[in-house]
């Protein structure tokens, strides 16, 4: 089945305005600008579009909350912070299909009643930023944004903001802080950005890929969109595969496609014909799945039922011969390094988990040390301003459950069992 966003695969070069218009670009906007914002929200709700940033929250619901919240002005933010290790989808969309994303931004802003939108793009992604900036100039010159969109009453100013390159800077409330000129630290929730967001005003923060789906839905309708994917997760999702497979890259697949298809048909399987030891469907924060779960459909509910998560689609594979203790130590250290430091519980949890994992790796401490992981995680559950505190748990706890032998070998010898 064809994709929705990369319907003819990833283009060889950036799609400029002329090329985008030839493929029906901005037709959705031309129609929508004559309709009411409520109709846009209804169409997106009917399509069942869910956020692609990781949480899978229904986009129509988020927009309705923002539109209905009290406030004399509203904001739309495109979140292209994308600092998850191995994720490439947002920068690819911005680099190759910037007008598709920008049209989605304009439609979203119109739907929620925003007259200002920010494009928050990871500062490291120069090509994506330049491409978006060029497209924004073209769109403004053609009156798709700026004053009096397509000659009507609606006006929208769009501004690009470079995002700091750290993981927490992509958290939605940290995004608000950065745009307000502060350091990237998440805010306590509630209140949620949809009611008290940027500069205290109702704000919708949407991921790049989420917004890229908006124009196709508005152009072709929700029934068409629901032909892709599953009833729970309609449409497609872009998955990122990295160097552990023969053909790394991004792959847009309908929700519900078996994980096996992504790994074997798209990725060409593990390099050097190695066998899979574990699959992490949403690296680096999801639970590991054993290889026998390879036929699990790529869908939010199915992944949850299998014991893991879909996240933002970075699928990592661990090959046989790889020590899981070393893998989990890297993950623990990643979260320790990325903890912004403002919540005591998160600081203590991430530091302690890293320290415990290091002790296991070095073979220090007996079996009792393994019981401490669960205790530290349980003590800190539900604490902290953002979700980072909940992220090290699934990889650690699933690794302990699936591969007790790797941990036992490290504790006994201080070395990996496979080397």
């Amino acid at each position, binding site marked *: 089945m064809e994709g929705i966003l990369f319907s003819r695969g990833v283009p060889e070069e950036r799609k400029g305005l002329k090329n985008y218009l030839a493929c029906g670009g901005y037709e959705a906007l031309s129609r929508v600008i004559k309709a009411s914002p409520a109709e846009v929200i209804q169409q997106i709700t009917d399509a069942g579009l869910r956020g692609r940033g990781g949480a899978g929250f229904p986009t129509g619901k988020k927009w309705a909350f923002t539109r209905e919240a009290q406030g004399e002005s509203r904001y739309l933010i495109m979140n292209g912070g994308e600092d998850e290790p191995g994720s490439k989808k947002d920068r690819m969309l911005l680099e190759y299909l910037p007008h598709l994303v920008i049209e989605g931004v304009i439609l979203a802003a119109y739907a929620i009643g925003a007259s200002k939108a920010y494009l928050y793009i990871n500062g490291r992604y120069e090509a994506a930023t330049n491409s978006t900036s060029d497209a924004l100039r073209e769109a403004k010159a053609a009156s798709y944004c700026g004053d009096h969109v397509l000659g009507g009453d609606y006006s929208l100013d769009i501004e690009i903001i470079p995002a700091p390159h750290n993981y927490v800077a992509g958290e939605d409330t940290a995004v608000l802080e950065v745009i307000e000129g502060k350091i990237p630290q998440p805010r306590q929730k509630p209140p949620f950005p949809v009611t008290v967001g940027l500069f205290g005003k109702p704000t919708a923060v949407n991921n790049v890929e989420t917004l890229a789906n908006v124009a196709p839905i508005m152009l072709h309708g929700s029934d068409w969109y629901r032909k892709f994917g599953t009833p729970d997760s309609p449409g497609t999702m872009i998955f990122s595969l990295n160097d552990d497979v023969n053909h790394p890259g991004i792959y847009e697949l309908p929700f519900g496609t078996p994980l096996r298809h992504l790994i074997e048909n798209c990725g060409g399987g593990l390099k050097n014909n190695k066998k899979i030891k574990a699959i992490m469907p949403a690296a680096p924060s999801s639970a590991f799945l054993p290889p026998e779960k390879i036929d699990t459909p790529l869908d939010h509910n199915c992944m949850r039922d299998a014991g893991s998560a879909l996240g933002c689609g970075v699928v990592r594979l661990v090959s046989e011969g790889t020590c899981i203790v070393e893998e989990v130590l890297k993950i623990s250290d990643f979260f320790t390094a990325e903890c912004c430091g403002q919540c*005591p519980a998160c600081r203590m949890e991430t530091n302690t988990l890293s320290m415990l994992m290091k002790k296991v790796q070095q073979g220090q401490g007996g079996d009792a040390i393994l019981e*401490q992981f669960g205790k530290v995680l349980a003590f800190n559950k539900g604490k902290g301003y953002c979700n980072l505190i909940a992220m090290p748990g699934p990889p650690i706890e699933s690794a302990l459950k699936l591969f007790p032998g790797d941990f036992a070998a490290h504790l006994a010898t201080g070395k990996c069992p496979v080397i």
Partner: protein
Amino acid sequence: MRICLVCQNIDCKSRGSEQLMSELQKRITAKGLTDVEIKPYMCFGACQEGPNIVLYPEKNWYAKVKVEDLDEITSHLAGGPHVQRLDTIDSSLKELIYQLLDTGVL
């Protein structure tokens, strides 16, 4: 060897825990407590109550410690009374940290 762990994470440091460590070391040396070793600790998870000092294996936790409290803490290490007024930390957090220390995480 008895160990005196002084938190050195951001909050505790900003409240003077580096100075506390060096001042405590001076007092321990002056008292001739050769069986006490002072070590930094990365975080006890009670930052809002910092600076925090934990004595192990005694399992005593002193919170919101100031330089002027160090003489009493040193006396406690030398066999004097427990400094009750600095013992304010929630018991569940204490239990978690003491269990971690029991597993050899120092």
